[in-house]
């Protein structure tokens, strides 16, 4: 698809003049206007560290903070009157650990009961209401989504400070093994941070992109072994002709380098004979010390640990013994994913290492033994994910027209419905290519039944109680009929971000039923709106003004997109009558934007959307045909 042509904004012309100028279809033979590059960034939102990167003039830039650090600690400190993120928050960890949140990624999309199973030690004070975790700070209770939003805001600021440009779009990475609830939480955090998310990208796929686009890398089957701070992913990808296709993915979204720190901490408590339970703040401190010990042991054969007046000496041998079970767990996941992908071990071209924890010597050794290959880490394992994300952001925002790079991902865990007796009926299998859509038919069991509740879960087990509850979907407005007569088709759609949406229709009447979503461990749309409102009010911004400006931006965007499209092929695809109908609707939208009437703008956007439906269809058909037959629009 040829990239859209955008006008460079002349600063002296009024808005109206600019748009009116665009309204004239260009003469054949006229030079197309140079496309201005947009500022797109890639964010690696990690458990322990986060990074932000971009592509400028074909080169990768990982953007540093004011102290030239590339890695920003994923730590947020809630002071009495302020919020601090990153290195400064890490310093606050020593003085005020109770109000300093670390590893919030482990809490995203999770309930309190799950946290207890997931992390052996929880160095926070958590509370729950309706199942979702929240963290107690001196500024009140905060949701993990709000904490993550603070990190994202800080990263965006970091990027904007370096290039003095506003961010137009971002690709945020998530563990491939993140389930729907965890992904949705990440997207909600981005929304709170005011970011335009181009795509949620799987971390292993991002790493594959970074290596693949390095031109040194051969085509074929690649394995990405990604051991991050709190999550483990292993993905098998096929890379050929610019297309990265995930064949299968596996892992553990509650296993990571952090766990190595925990086992060291536990070992120390044992060695030093400290049997009394530690406070949350002392625990946080001991974990930091343990982490340092782990890192030292990468180079040295032993290291001393001092805490609470006691000391112990940790050798590399003991450390290896402590972490061996953890690594074995990752190799079991590797076996499973190889089986799922259907490939043979000897088909693998390369094994790519991602995540700081892969620096641990025993990890590298065991990977080499298992895959019978020397794993690659030529691109810094801490930066590789952000780099890949930046590459994709650059392509998606349109800075590389004609670039054929494409990422085809899969859903990591099966989706199912709860049926009689608490059994899971599977609708979508794990490792199915996304986007994907499946329909399921239901009927009513009572006369005049107008509603229905569907419980969606994610996981591989047979019983609902052993899977993750994602959400309940309430269907309302089923036309009243005798029991068993209604035919309700429910469509489950998973988009390219791995997010689920549900729609329902009653077939005999053709009536769409209303679907009300109640996420099990997430926020409803209303709750996100409330949080957004809270944050605007906190920042002193006028809520109504913000809502209006959002509509205006949406309206202007639609106008510009249509303008660009019509400039290309309105003459070839539309009759004069059709063109004038469209232009009428566009003029109407433009008028409502000028009048700054929010409701009118929304109505006008909807009207223009509908009016351009068949034009859009024709464009798609033509461009597909054109691409497939290698011809020009004019020749069709």
């Amino acid at each position: 698809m040829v990239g859209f042509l955008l006008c460079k904004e002349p600063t002296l012309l009024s808005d109206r003049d600019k748009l009116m100028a665009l309204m004239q279809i260009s003469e054949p033979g006229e030079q197309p206007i140079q496309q201005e590059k947009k500022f797109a960034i890639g964010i690696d939102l990690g458990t322990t560290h986060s990074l932000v990167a971009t592509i400028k003039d074909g080169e990768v830039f990982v953007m540093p903070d004011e102290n030239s650090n590339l890695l920003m600690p994923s730590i947020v400190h809630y002071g009495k009157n302020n919020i601090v993120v990153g290195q400064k928050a890490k310093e606050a960890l020593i003085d005020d650990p109770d109000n300093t949140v670390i590893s919030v990624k482990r809490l995203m999309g999770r309930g309190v009961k799950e946290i207890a199973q997931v992390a052996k030690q929880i160095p926070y004070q958590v509370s729950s209401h309706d199942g979702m975790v929240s963290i107690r700070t001196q500024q009140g209770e905060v949701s993990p989504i709000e904490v993550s939003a603070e990190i994202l805001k800080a990263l965006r600021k970091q990027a904007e400070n370096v290039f003095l440009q506003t961010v137009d779009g971002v690709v945020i990475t998530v563990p491939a093994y993140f389930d729907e609830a965890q992904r949705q939480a990440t997207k909600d955090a981005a929304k709170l941070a005011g970011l335009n998310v181009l795509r949620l990208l799987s971390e292993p796929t991002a790493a594959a992109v970074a290596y693949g686009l390095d031109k040194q890398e051969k085509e074929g089957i690649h394995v990405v072994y990604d051991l991050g701070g709190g999550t483990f992913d292993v993905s098998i990808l096929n890379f050929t002709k610019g297309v990265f296709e995930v064949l299968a993915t596996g892992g553990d979204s509650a296993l990571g380098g952090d766990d190595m720190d925990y086992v060291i901490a536990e070992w120390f408590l044992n060695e030093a004979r400290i049997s009394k339970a530690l406070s949350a703040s002392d625990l946080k401190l001991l974990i930091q010390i343990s982490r340092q010990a782990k890192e030292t042991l990468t180079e040295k054969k032993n290291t001393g640990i001092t805490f609470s007046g006691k000391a112990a000496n940790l050798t590399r041998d003991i450390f290896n013994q402590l972490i061996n079970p953890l690594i074995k767990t990752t190799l079991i996941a590797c076996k499973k994913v190889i089986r799922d992908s259907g490939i043979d071990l000897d088909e693998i071209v390369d094994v790519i290492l991602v995540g700081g924890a892969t620096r641990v010597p025993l990890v590298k050794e065991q990977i080499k033994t298992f895959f019978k290959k020397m794993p690659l880490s030529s691109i810094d394992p801490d930066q590789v994910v952000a780099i890949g994300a930046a590459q994709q952001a650059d392509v998606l925002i349109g800075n590389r027209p004609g670039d054929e790079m494409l990422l085809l991902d899969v859903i990591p865990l099966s989706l199912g419905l709860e049926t009689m007796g608490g059994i899971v009926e599977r609708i979508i299998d794990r490792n199915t290519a996304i986007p994907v859509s499946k329909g399921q038919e239901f009927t009513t069991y009572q006369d005049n039944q107008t509603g229905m509740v569907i419980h969606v879960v994610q996981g591989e087990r047979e019983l609902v109680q052993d899977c993750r509850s994602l959400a309940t979907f309430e269907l309302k407005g089923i036309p009243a009929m005798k029991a068993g007569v209604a035919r309700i088709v429910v469509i489950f759609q998973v988009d390219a971000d791995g997010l689920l949406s549900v729609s329902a229709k009653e077939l005999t009447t053709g009536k769409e039923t209303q679907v009300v979503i109640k996420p099990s461990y997430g926020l409803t749309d209303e709750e996100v709106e409330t949080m957004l409102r809270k944050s605007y009010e906190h920042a002193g911004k006028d809520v109504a003004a913000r809502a209006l400006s959002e509509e205006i931006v949406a309206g202007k965007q639609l106008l510009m997109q249509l303008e660009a499209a019509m400039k290309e092929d309105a003459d070839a695809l539309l009759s004069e009558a059709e063109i004038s109908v469209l232009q009428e609707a566009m003029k109407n939208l433009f008028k409502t934007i000028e009048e700054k009437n929010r409701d009118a703008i929304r109505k006008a956007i909807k009207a223009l959307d509908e009016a351009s439906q068949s034009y859009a269809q024709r464009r798609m058909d033509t461009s597909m045909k054109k691409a497939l037959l290698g011809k020009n629009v004019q020749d069709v």
Partner: protein
Amino acid sequence: MKKAGVGVEKVLPFNFKLNYFELFDLPESFAIDLKLLRERMRELQKQCHPDRFINSTPQEKRISMQYTVFVNEAFTALKSPVTRAAYLLKLHDVDVEFEKNTAFSAAFLMQQMDWRERIENDCSDEVTQEIESAENETMDTLERLFNKPDNESLLEAKELTRQLKFYEKLRNDL
């Protein structure tokens, strides 16, 4: 715009009325060139995937999503022997009825029981090989049957497809 691979030239302007084989310009048969299937899927995705429409109008984004879902659905169905056979049956108006607990032949059931017993007695490797060769035999027969799909052949194909699914499940459980 790059010219697509040779076979894809023959594909009509993309539409939902195509069956899965037509979509990928592959012959309607049980035997399939998996490499070619994958190549054609990639070529189609390069044109229709939502990532190509990030800056497009909401209408175009919706259509792109629908096209891509269709391509994925078709690819997933044709990629594996069981779903491919089930789809071929569907094209001939035969419902494979996986969910129905229609009885299998006694011989088939005996074989299953024998295998499961031997798996419990630690003969997994041997059994895996036997299952694989039974699968290959079944697939060869299916190929023959679908090449001459009269009523009798289709009924037999239905039975064999259901058996093939059994073998697949057994191998996955191992």
